[in-house]
């Protein structure tokens, strides 16, 4: 029973990179699952069963994180000492100020029972979803650059993008919530 690494990249035997080959990641996940899954330890000692359980829990948590580009980027940022708390996403990004102001007005109207705000909200939603997709593309665009240069400035940029994305995501969720909630 060799102790397994609690570092997600190390567990998978991967370099600490932002750009990962998902097909390769899945192959490794299946192979490691076959090795560690509790099903393989049913008639082993209690210690070995616990070991399998703990190892598989880390493996599954690791796979969930690494296969999702955003969670992966957050994980790597954290590894590199960046603070990625929710705090950064609470401040309105300056370039969004005007749109967010208008959105909040529309949300207030809808909450007040004014259904005429609905089309404006739907329009805003489309806009924010597009914005989110643009951020995703920008993020991915920076992954290979970082992997090659290991430039911490790129990580700072990525963190800023992640915060902006989270902010936009929260907006979309809020609009969705109001739109479906009001309809119900």
């Amino acid at each position, binding site marked *: 029973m060799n102790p397994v690494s609690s570092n997600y990249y190390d567990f998978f035997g991967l370099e600490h990179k932002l750009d990962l080959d998902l097909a390769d990641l899945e192959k490794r996940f299946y192979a490691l*699952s076959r090795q560690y899954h509790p099903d393989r330890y*049913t008639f082993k000692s209690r210690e070995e069963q616990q070991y399998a359980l703990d190892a598989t829990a880390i493996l599954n948590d690791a796979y969930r994180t690494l296969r999702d580009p955003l969670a992966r980027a957050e994980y790597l940022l954290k590894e590199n000492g960046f603070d990625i708390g929710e705090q950064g996403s609470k401040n309105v990004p300056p370039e969004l100020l005007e749109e967010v102001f208008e959105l909040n007005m529309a949300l207030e109207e809808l909450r007040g029972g004014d259904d005429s705000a609905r089309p404006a909200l739907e329009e805003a939603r489309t806009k924010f979803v597009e914005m989110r997709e643009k951020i995703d593309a920008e993020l991915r665009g920076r992954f290979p650059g970082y992997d090659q240069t290991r430039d911490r400035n790129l990580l700072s940029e990525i963190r800023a993008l992640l915060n902006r994305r989270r902010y936009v995501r929260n907006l979309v969720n809020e609009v969705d919530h109001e739109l479906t909630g009001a309809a119900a």
Partner: protein
Amino acid sequence: MTPIQIDFGKPERVVGIDLGTTNSLVAYMDTAQHPSVIPGEDGDKLVPSIVTLTREGDIIVGNKARAALIDEPDRTVYSIKRLMGRGVGDVQEELKLFPFRVAEGSESVIRIQLGERTFTPPEISSFILRQLKTNAETFLGEPVSKAVITVPAYFNDAQRQATKDAGRVAGLEVLRLVNEPTAAALAYGLDKRRDGIVAVYDLGGGTFDISILKLHEGIFEVLATNGDTHLGGDDIDNRLVHIALEDIHSEWGKDISHYGDAVQTLRRAVIEAKERLSFVPSTRIEFAYKGKTYQREMTRAVFEKLIADIVDRTLGPCRNCIKDAGVAVEQIDEVVLVGGSTRIPMVRSAVETLFRAKPHTDLNPDEVVALGAAVQAGILSGTVENQLLLDVTPLSLGIETMGGVVSKLIHRNSTIPASATETFTTAVEGQRNVLIHVLQGERELAKDNRSLARFDLKDIDPLPAGMARIEVRFLIDANGILNVTARDARTGKEQSVDVKPSYGLTDEQVEAMYQESIDRAEEDFRARQGAEARVEADRILAAVDKAKRNDAYLDLTDEERNEITRALNELLVVYHSDDHLLIRAKIDQLNKVTMKLAENMINTAVSSALKGTKI
């Protein structure tokens, strides 16, 4: 005491059990490594999940208990699965529709009244499991003590724990709880040996599950699951019964809904009609009670109109599941149908329309879950190689934070085992305890989710406010059951945690029920042994009685005759004792002292027979 047998060559026997709302089954892997369902004593593979307590105090399960539904409705229970892991508060709807007799004083754990006794749902389920265990032991000719039991994928922690408890009370070590649709996929995959994306649509007696899996070289990876633990064929039956009761009320001018026997007879009649309608376009519901009859013609079209909303309720979870799985409908290669209710043509066409694929119906929808459970049992015991199941947790796990808001720690559809670690601290100086409220569900507010348990972190070192750092690890194991451990992050010492489950039994209660069931089993065993000894005593008493009238008896010495009389009287004295060994000892003694008499009688018989031939 039999010495413990250690056989290294043979893998341990593990059976697979489908503990269903309507029927239960037990299956095993045969020598050719094919899953196979084990029939009961009556030859039936399906054991109806019906339990009755006879007036003599015996528990009867299955087909033999079915008649009691009508004859002894107050001593009989069905669909107990609907109550597993639930409190009285959340079954009020159920109680309107099902004839469950909840005993007074039930709160977080329901107790069901059967005659003069009360039982918890896990105990009632344990009776069904015990029957399946006996069936397997009789069939296999060896003791069975380990099992894989299936549960609806959408079962929460308490419902899973209750199922595990039932296994324990039945004397079974539950090696794994497997989700029913996943088990079905295992049986399907073993059958097909083809990679791809498969959806399993499982509409059983009381529960609905939908799971989407990726099959790849023996790996069965669940991508997402969804469902409704209170939706199934029962709902269709209840709808039909309700309509028939109204009809009868207006036709006969009499409301019979409070007569348990009448309702159960009617229920049987509508179920049979429902089943016929899957094969014929029109049928008749016929029902007679106390000399009165009720008849109603029902076409499939009318039937479909009546149940349309029930079928519709399965579609929302399907859509959500497809979304959560991150696949497009076109990517789903096949839909596997599980559960008796999927025989209904309307269900089939609804599935076909939604998934745009013809459903796979080669496998018997009643048996496929049990077969899959047997495959999983084979995986665990190592006889089935290369196959591995990667399942997910159906519901998000979270803790209650300030303002009654839930903070999610493990999201739904995470592959299990899954874990999350959270650090807690104290709010006031010298605080010794921290209470953590754990919930399951997708809603934002704690009150809208399912309360799992309250964990009390005890004996925290007294420190200024906010200085203590207790690291709590939440781990969902491969059964989908939560385990919580805590340690003091400053000292690294294990931190003691007291668990107060919101619903369900404590370990001590389960252990006590198990002991009681063992005691009862021993009592039953002793009773049976006693009865058998008395049968033998009757035989020898009759034989001796007859022999005393034989001439050979008179040829014995006085001493020999006295010995026989003494042994005879001693046997009569112990005849009604419940110590079967004592009865047997006296039988042996009487046998011994009558040996000479028996020999003499044979000689006499032989000589008179010889005499006879001379004539």
